[in-house]
């Protein structure tokens, strides 16, 4: 009885050790952030709410406001979510919108002319953009409360 317990314990220990070695060999189960810097594509994502109501511009969105205000008409802009999504090539990142939908991002290729990134705004639009570093891709994600939701996606990586 005692011998079988010892055998069982040893078997479990060996199994766990083998699993650990296998995971370490792949280096990704716990180390999904280990990929070389060149393969990483950090993306700054900002979700804003724009409205015709007075309310000014959220200080965090001043840069975005400078880019959007010549093209789009609104009176106030407030930041609902700010997130830096650090992705490897081909990895899918997810950002939740305040209305429950999700935005999925997948960098497909990185080259001298920027990042080719696939974006899926659930229930709204799917697109493929080649965005140079620090180029903002702003996507209207539909009406929300008394205004509109907009998502700014900006690759921000070391060159």
């Amino acid at each position, binding site marked *: 009885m005692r011998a079988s317990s010892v055998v069982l314990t040893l078997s479990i220990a060996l199994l766990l050790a083998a699993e650990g070695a296998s995971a370490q060999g792949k280096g990704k*189960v716990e180390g*999904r952030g280990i990929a070389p810097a060149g393969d990483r594509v950090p993306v700054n994502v900002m979700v804003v709410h724009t409205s015709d109501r007075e309310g000014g511009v959220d200080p965090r969105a001043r840069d975005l406001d400078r880019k959007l205000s010549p093209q789009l008409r609104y009176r106030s802009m407030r930041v609902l979510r700010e997130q830096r999504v650090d992705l490897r090539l081909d*990895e899918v990142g997810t950002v939740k919108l305040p209305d429950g939908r999700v935005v999925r991002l997948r960098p497909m290729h990185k080259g001298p002319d920027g990042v080719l990134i696939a974006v899926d705004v659930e229930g709204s639009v799917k*697109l493929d953009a080649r965005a140079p570093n620090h180029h903002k891709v702003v996507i209207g994600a539909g009406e929300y409360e008394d205004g509109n939701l907009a998502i700014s996606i900006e690759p921000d990586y070391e060159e």
Partner: protein
Amino acid sequence: MSREQQLQAYHDGELSRLARWRFERRLRREPALRRELRELARVGEWVRAGHRAPEPPDLWAGIAPRLPAADARRSAESARGRSRDLGWLAPAGAMAATAGLAVAFAMGWLSPGAPPGPEGVVRWLDSGGRDVMVLEGAPDTTIIWVIGGGDAHESV
């Protein structure tokens, strides 16, 4: 590891045998997780397919002469209740949007490079048949705006 990280790792075949077995057990029990996995697999697939396809013919040349007609139709539609959507555009944006709208009307989607040209930021776009405008006025910003034409909250 978070749920998203686990999903991604499973999708990429990076989980250890034991972790994979555990995850597959969860998959069998949770339909929502299976759905998320399917969605994950689909992101970017249409992009790959689009990039493998041969270059489409230059449709822009055929569309450009029809712009005034499209513009007129746009005005009529605006009068029928879409003014709220377009009212969101500042005058500069409204001018630039015309081309994007025209293409969206004609094709329902934007082929790679149209209408901003092959050097444009937006290479492929599917708005599910909704009207869409692409503004590439500013040098370091591209705006993509879907204009009404359906329930923006429905799942795809």
